[in-house]
């Protein structure tokens, strides 16, 4: 049943919208964005944490020192990027699944997804740490969602 004078939406646009709304696409997008952001953060914060170098490094010529520093920076930023990507993917995936299950779009999807993500990330450190992680991440996610949804 089409409204009069409305142009039919081309099939490609509908297909693109369907793909963009799917959970898998959102997880992939969050993973890639998390990776990029984590890489930037890692590169920035790696300058603050100097691992105790082997003093022999300082004896080597400038180029070697630069190469060693660069290698350390890349390793650190890669590990941060990976962590951010995993966090982003888990959060986005759980939020999408919860929203699809509830068939509602409100602020509590982010809270529940944050709790699950926090618990999963802190699971290795025991149940108490998982609870604290859940509460913390849920509060963080709710705050950000509230800020983004205010009018």
């Amino acid at each position, binding site marked *: *049943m089409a409204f009069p004078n409305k142009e039919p939406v081309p099939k490609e646009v509908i297909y693109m919208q369907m793909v963009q*709304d799917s959970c898998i696409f959102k997880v992939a997008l969050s993973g890639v964005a998390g990776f990029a952001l984590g890489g930037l953060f890692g590169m920035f914060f790696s300058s603050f944490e100097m691992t105790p170098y082997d003093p022999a490094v300082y004896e080597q010529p400038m180029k070697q020192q630069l190469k060693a520093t660069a290698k350390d920076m890349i390793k650190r930023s890669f590990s941060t990027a990976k962590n951010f990507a995993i966090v982003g993917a888990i959060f986005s995936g759980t939020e*999408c699944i919860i*929203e*699809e299950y*509830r*068939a*509602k*779009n*409100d602020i509590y*999807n982010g809270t529940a997804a944050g709790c699950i993500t926090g618990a999963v990330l802190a699971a290795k450190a025991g149940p108490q740490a998982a609870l604290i992680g859940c509460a913390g991440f849920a509060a963080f996610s709710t705050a950000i969602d509230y800020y983004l*949804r205010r*009018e």
Partner: protein
Amino acid sequence: MSFYPFGGGSSGGGSSQQQAVNAQNVAMAENELEMITDTFYRIVDSCYKKCIPPKYIEGELNKGESVCIDRCVAKYFEVNTKVGEALQKRGQQAGVGGAVTGFGA
């Protein structure tokens, strides 16, 4: 749900008979179209009230709302079917019972 239930292939007798049949077909088709349009707008109204909360952030449907509308339309048709079946059963029972009582009275 066909629009022209009797088809256009009724080869009747004289032209006047064909005219009467065509008029009846047209009337039935009009009724059916009206029924379908009414059902469509009822579904749109009901699912809109159920699924779309009054605070609008953007113009496009997000994932939760799309899923809700899919389920709403499916449920509406299922309810339609079930109520139709229940009514039919009652009609049959009433028809049978009515015939018996009518005969007895």
